[in-house]
């Protein structure tokens, strides 16, 4: 289980998170939505220690991770993987080596063994036939799939997806959605997905929490979002430019 307790975070003079609290149950697929710049990425980066809160606590599976040092965070990061918004593959390596890198570093396997493990992970996302090519040869969608494969190499219990379907074609988006669903159903992986892709939200999410102006305005199953009379939520869900939301 994951708990965010009253998180405050500012960057310079900009107050991004104003006391957010959230609970994510094991095996759940939790979507965090909101307009661009609302603080969604900032919030989830707290889980892996890439951002530290100004105030508040972060608890991962009973362990308080709020004030851990960089080194103390390493075992946490092996359990909680993150797939970034940009596909953040390492440009200087082949797709295969990209996926093999964490395997090499964390398991005592030879280069050949690590590479075959990596190939298996690439097969999970249907990218194994391109193993020897470089990230620059591919578009965003395929790079994202490889980034997901790389994140799964350490067999994490928790995975954070930062806008996994933004900017990729509908077919690839569907594949990514089904992968997230699969991870939860078959492997019991807890997923936190930052997104504003409505199709994913209503297709895959178990629960959805919406961030607006640094706080959660709604937190519940997708059906709640269709039925609520919260004007801000309705405006966002229906994509209306006019309304109480300041965009």
């Amino acid at each position, binding site marked *: 289980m994951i708990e965010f307790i009253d998180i405050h975070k500012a960057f310079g003079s900009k107050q991004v998170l104003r006391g957010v609290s959230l609970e994510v149950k094991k095996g759940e697929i939790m979507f965090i939505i909101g307009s661009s710049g609302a603080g969604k990425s900032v919030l989830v980066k707290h889980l*892996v*220690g*890439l951002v530290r809160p100004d105030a508040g606590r972060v608890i991962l599976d009973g362990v308080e991770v709020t004030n851990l040092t*960089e080194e103390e*965070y*390493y*075992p946490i*990061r*092996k359990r909680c*993987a*993150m797939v*970034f*918004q*940009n596909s*953040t*593959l*390492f*440009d200087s390596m082949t797709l295969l080596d990209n996926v093999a*890198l*964490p395997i090499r*570093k*964390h398991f005592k396997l030879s280069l050949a063994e690590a590479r075959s493990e990596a190939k298996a992970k690439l097969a999970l996302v249907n990218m194994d036939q391109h193993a020897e090519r470089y990230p620059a040869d591919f578009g965003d969608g395929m790079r994202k799939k490889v980034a997901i494969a*790389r*994140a799964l190499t*350490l067999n994490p219990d928790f995975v954070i997806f930062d806008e996994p379907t933004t900017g990729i074609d509908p077919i690839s988006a569907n594949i990514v959605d089904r992968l997230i669903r699969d991870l939860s159903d078959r492997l019991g992986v807890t997923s936190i997905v930052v997104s504003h892709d409505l199709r994913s939200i209503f297709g895959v999410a178990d629960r959805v929490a919406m961030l607006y102006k640094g706080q959660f305005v709604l937190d519940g199953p997708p059906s709640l979002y269709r039925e609520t009379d919260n004007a801000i939520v309705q405006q966002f869900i229906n994509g209306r430019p006019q309304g109480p939301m300041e965009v």
Partner: protein
Amino acid sequence: MQALSPLKLLSRFGASFMEVAQDVGGMAVLLYKVIRCFFPPKLDGMETWRNLYKVGVKSAPIVVVTALLTGAIMVIQSGALVAQFDAFGLLGWGAGFATLREVGPIMIGLMFSGRVGANNTAELGTMKVTDQIDALRALAIDPITYLLVPRFIAIVLMMFLLTIVGDLTALVGGAYTGQVLLGVSPSLFASSVIEYIKLEDLFNGLFKAFTFGVAIAVVSSHYGMTTSGGAVGVGRSVNNSVVASAVLIFVLDYFITSILH
């Protein structure tokens, strides 16, 4: 450009001082973190070899060309002086001494800073703004051990080795120019080098080369890792990196020169 009141000037000065202090502090911390990885030695062998190869291959041609030209230029300049005083026997000493102790390490250092330092900053900077550094951290891979230490070793080692090669090349270039321009035979050149140049001169220059290598490695890595602001930020970081390296080379050179006397 508005007129600056004294108070404004002072606050501007203070602000740039703080910026410089921040950079210097950041570099000191980086140097400390890198050195800590040597005791006990934990480094990524594969990455170290890869960087050694890359740095060597990238910088060798330009160092050789620069060294040849520098040796030639030193001879041309000393040649004018030597002709003035009719002291051709001193040509080898004049050109050789200055090359080994000063001009060699400095020129090679500057070229190295441009070729390797700028490249290093650009690479690390691009990785930083495309979140690849964060991706490493999220995979529980320490960027210092994986990225910085191999580059550090490669840069320092290569700077040292290439200065040796460069020194010799410069002397060769100088000897040839001496022959062509001044009619000084290479054997006369060589004998004046051997007679007047001491091994101490060579080691002096090599010690400087080592220090410059450390400076370039630390400065370029620091500016690379602290890049922000997309493509524009990368350009800015490279700019700051080469400027800081150049200043540091001259400042260090002065202090080493005065201390070692």
